């Protein structure tokens, strides 16, 4: 069982910085207007291709729009799409993992072979497949990326359930006459939740990367709505004369993914401790 809050291992500087970055992201998600006064959609034609400066930390783009403003306002689109992906992966993956580990050997064999088949398909390709079949857009993009992460959640859930089920207190509740659902939702799932939460955070980072990459390829939100991948793609044609249009948002996405990975690992340690 997870221990009390007093026993948390102290976060290192990397974890603290990561947490800070994620907090900033949450703030951008909720109140983007507080962090930039520039319009992410309408530029100023007198301020085209300005290099990074105090006024424009990420520079301006070919239409004179502040790139940082587009990144800040793009948080909503990217985070919600990635969030949808994690939700899909978590819900379906956990359901499959629970079924395989608790419904007997047949259910286990069948569901795990399905998962093996999914493993054979690269997650990115599955996402591409869904997006091309159902049309570009944030919803199909989120679902497509989410389907790719079902595998991870299903396997981790199964492993965790098998571990937790063998613990004494779960055995005890079974002997005490608790039913299937009582055991499952009262004891097994809470015991496995820590690992799943940690995985969800790491997966959120991976989803941000996948969503950005597909957005970069033009499968996400249509322009001019800012979305991280799209912002990077828009800068691609101007690499020679405006490096900041791709490099700074690109570095930013990289940092976000790393930060989420670090936080996820920390949460994993905390919940396992």
């Amino acid at each position, binding site marked *: 069982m997870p221990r009390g809050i007093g026993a948390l291992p102290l976060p290192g500087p990397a974890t603290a910085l990561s947490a*800070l*970055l994620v*907090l*900033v992201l949450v*703030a951008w998600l909720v109140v983007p207007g507080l*962090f930039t006064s520039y319009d992410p*959609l*309408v*530029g100023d*034609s007198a301020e*085209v*291709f300005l290099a*990074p400066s105090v006024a424009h*930390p990420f520079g301006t783009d*070919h*239409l*004179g729009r502040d790139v*940082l403003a587009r990144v800040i306002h793009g948080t909503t689109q990217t985070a919600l799409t990635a969030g949808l992906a994690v939700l899909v992966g978590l819900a379906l993956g956990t359901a499959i993992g629970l079924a395989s580990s608790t419904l007997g050997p047949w259910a286990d064999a069948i569901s795990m072979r399905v998962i093996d088949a999914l493993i054979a398909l690269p997650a990115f390709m599955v996402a591409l497949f869904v997006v091309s079949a159902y049309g570009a857009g944030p919803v199909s993009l989120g679902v497509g990326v989410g389907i790719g992460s079902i595998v991870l959640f299903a396997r981790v859930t199964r492993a965790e359930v098998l571990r937790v089920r063998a613990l004494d207190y779960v055995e005890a509740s079974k002997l005490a006459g608790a039913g299937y659902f009582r055991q499952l939702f009262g004891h097994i799932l809470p015991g496995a939740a820590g690992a799943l939460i940690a995985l969800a955070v790491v997966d959120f980072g991976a989803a941000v990367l996948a969503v*950005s*990459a597909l957005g*970069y390829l033009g499968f996400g939100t*249509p*322009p*001019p709505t800012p979305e991280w*991948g799209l912002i*990077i793609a828009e*800068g*691609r*044609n*101007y*690499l*020679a*004369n*405006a*490096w*900041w249009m*791709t*490099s*700074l*948002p*690109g*570095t*930013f*996405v*990289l*940092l976000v993914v790393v930060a989420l990975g670090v936080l996820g690992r920390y949460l994993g340690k905390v919940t396992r401790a």
Partner: protein
Amino acid sequence: MSFHRVRTRLAATAGAAALLAGVLAGCAAPAATGGGAGDGAGASTLSGSPVEGGSLVFADIELQTDFQVQKAFNYTQSNVFRNIADRLTAFDPETGEVVPWIASEWTVNEDNTEFTFTIRPDVTFSDGTPLDAAAVKANLDQLGLGDDAKKIVKNRDFIGYVGSEVTAEDTVVVRLSEPNADFLKATAAATASLLAPATLALDYAGQADISKIVASGPFVFESQVPDQELVFTKRDDYAWPSSISTNDGAAHLDEVVFRAIPEVGLRVGAVASGQADVSRGVQPSDEASATASGIELAVAEAPELTANWAAFRGGAPVVSDQNVRRALQIGFDREALKSTVLSERYPLSGSVLNRSAPGFVDLSDEFAYDADEAERLLDEAGWKVGSDGIREKDGQRLRVSIAASPRSVVIKPAFEFIESEWRKIGVELTNNAGDSAILATALGDPAYPIIGSRQFYLGGLGPLFSAAGNTNTYVSDDELNALFATERAATEPSEREAVLADIQERLVLGTNLLVPLWDEVQVHAVGKGVHISFDGGTAPLLQEAWVED
């Protein structure tokens, strides 16, 4: 302030910035510096005495797979056809006149229905067969009549074509069922390139296959890598260029290569690094860095084409309302468009035609930027500003979309700019410019609201905007059709200019079907020691070109 601190940290890591961006972009262009405008430029870099031999690599935006001659409407096709095939006549961009090529002279009857061509002697196709009057007739018949069995459509410019007759060994007479003064110019277009009878005998797939096309031009097909490059070699016995060529005989170059570089940001770099000698489609933001690194910019003007415009499909939702069309026409700042996403090399358009075109009338004062008037017109049309700034009527948003070809490097950023301008007057634009898949479906769909384009019009404006086969506006306007007929029947130049003025006025102001944007030019990056010029359709004239050692 934690937010500020994070930003400072990010700035500090800027040095390592290439990491993810580089991975995502999958490429890197050579570093270049600069901003602002480059120096002067011209369409020709022919100077000094020609050097014989060598190879020239022409980097294009894409390569076509369909080279069926009637369909050679695109730059990527016409650039190739100009160098592998000859035409009856050539268009002189200096004078705007039609000059001799394979036809050494011609006469036209009084009512523009009969054209008699005298065919130059001793011209042969690369398979050895003669390009004589009979071969010319075979070509004109396929162009003018099409071939239903092979699914080859008529050449859209050959209006009223009845047939050709070989009346002497070197004479062909063309008869039309209705007057068409533009017919002569139509024979100077890429879509009227002359092919060997052996090629005309092939089915559609055969005629579309560049490796099977036999013609009489200065270069002959050698090899290809589909979608990547086409290689042509010089024909040693070539001796029949158009009368305005600076080279009477075979090409100076031994070999020319057309190579596709679809990534717009890389085309200048390809010339800078020597991977290409000439690149078509330099984006305005790369012009300064190109000149800074010693690359010459050759700006090819395009009197054979119309200006760039956005055409409304008259029957499409929302834009079927003329008030909306007028509002969109005057609802964006063209000067700001030019300073933001174009360059000084792109003159703002004053009509359907380029400023340099014969018969151009300047209507720009009549569609000058006026946001207040645009908003008034939209209000009048019943579109009220909604909660998010976009107008609505009966629960429907004021949303339009535009499709345009990827073969123009400026049209996508231009509509990104126009999108932000129209947003200010409450119009939402979905910008699909640059997506060839969407363009292909949009061209065939009259309900798709806007198409951005510029087109070859040697055959006149009639085939582009009249009734039959008009995929630009899908409107058959009686007044316009009457004007087109008058224009084709006109015999006096002054009479034709007057009608042409009426046509432009009707298209732009009478129907508000067209939004004039900017004059058509193609900016090329030309490497050091490369001497090249361009025709009136911006095609490279490789028979006259040479490369210094």
